[in-house]
């Protein structure tokens, strides 16, 4: 695959694919990621061991992404939840510790795909307010690095000088801030948030 060298990221997983990787990525961001809050809720309700939840999510995303490379599903929401359900069924079977009725229950789980979704499009000030609330929930130092980095536009080095802490520490805070902020954004849809 010498020809793939420059577009490594695009070509790496797409052997035999029918849909281009960039198109799948755009589709994934637009259609699948906004379902994350509902998906996590579904996984949490239907899987006992909560420490597996993130791995389950990863597995769902990988399965959905792989299928999308073969052709974009027409009804993304239904497809994501069907994938999640099938994954849980597989896991129950593999784990071989749950009585067989649990599988039947899961197979009867059709409702998930019909659950009301969060508003996918949130406009200007709502989104800004939501982001602000997410920012306020970061630990203080972590929050300050994000304020300086994202709002003030400073680099890692400049933040380190401003705050008088080591660059490596700033890097750690920033990475954690990014993760936390993104997780908050994905895990709560503004429309289902509790009133403040």
């Amino acid at each position: 695959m010498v020809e793939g060298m420059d577009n490594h990221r695009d070509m790496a997983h797409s052997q035999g694919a029918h849909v281009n990787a960039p198109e799948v990525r755009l589709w994934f961001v637009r259609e699948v990621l906004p379902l994350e809050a509902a998906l996590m809720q579904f996984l949490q309700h239907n899987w006992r061991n909560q420490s597996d939840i993130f791995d389950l999510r990863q597995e769902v995303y990988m399965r959905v992404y792989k299928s999308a490379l073969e052709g974009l599903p027409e009804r993304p929401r239904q497809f994501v939840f069907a994938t999640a359900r099938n994954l849980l069924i597989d896991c129950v079977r593999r784990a071989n510790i749950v009585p067989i009725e649990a599988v039947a229950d899961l197979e009867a789980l059709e409702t998930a795909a019909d659950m009301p979704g969060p508003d996918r499009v949130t406009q200007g000030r709502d989104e800004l307010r939501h982001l602000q609330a997410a920012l306020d929930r970061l630990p203080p130092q972590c929050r300050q690095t994000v304020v300086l980095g994202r709002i003030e536009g400073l680099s890692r080095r400049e933040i380190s000088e401003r705050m008088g802490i080591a660059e490596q520490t700033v890097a750690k805070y920033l990475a954690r801030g990014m993760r936390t902020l993104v997780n908050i954004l994905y895990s709560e849809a503004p429309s289902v948030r509790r009133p403040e």
Partner: protein
Amino acid sequence: MSGLFANNALDVEEQASEWLERRQFSSWTAQDKAALDAWLAQSLAHEIAFLRLEAGWDRTERLAALRPSVSARPVLARLRNMRGRLAGFAAAIVLMAGLGSVGFHYLSAPSEHVFTTALGEQRTITLGDGSVIELNTGTVLRTRIGRNERYAELVRGEAFFNIVHEGKRPFTVDVAKHRVIDLGTKFLIRKNPNRLEVALIEGRAELKSADPEIQQHSVLLTPGDVAVASVSSLSVERATAREISNTLAWQKGVIVFNNTTLADAAAEFNRYNSRKIVIADPDIAGQAIYGTFQAGNVTAFARLAQDVLGLHVENRDRQIVISR
């Protein structure tokens, strides 16, 4: 239920955040990019974790709108100098209080950003106003978004703009000596060394030239118009829907040739790849070709030249030389 999973999703997420942090806040070299690409190629889990984080982080772009206005600067200066847990807590309160009273002054200090893509890379940016800009290979775009202005400069490369129209804050894009003023639009701008193309897909836009040498200073573009500016001229051509869709094919990772000369096709491929196609024989450079190719797939193109056109193809280390 242990043993069922590697329980590594959180580790992968942490690694992805470290890559994203480095790319965003530290110096970023070609070697860094190669290392990131290698990490991404290691597993689909890596790729998805990074994609998820990158898309989420792009949404926080809007936070830049929280930049305090000039009058709130002293508050910020104090905030910067504070240290420690207590100070951080106090800072949070000060900032929140500040924001409350600052109110709609949020947007008064424009936020500036530079977005770049490397060779073969593409990137989608969502601005705070909901406008979406897609950058093609080898592109540099500067943006300045403030309360009273929305401004961008295409320094080089190609970008597709899908702009949310705001009557009081028109979106202007400067490129070379020209300015595109959006009147509610989807448009494409492509800058080559000696040639500039603006294709209007939807809505209306005005193209103005700042160069006094150019005869026609301003044109109003309607869908299907392609304005072509060279060093000394500005003209508008009509393009068919099919031609426009071919021009936008890069958004799907492909390039489409329709009665394109071999020389132009090679130049197009060379925009995306470091392994360059060289047409060594001037006699064949004008030969027309048709077809749709993956932008990164140089060898598929070479194969076509060899098998269909019957040309001689020589694979060298950094080049593919095509001759009769």
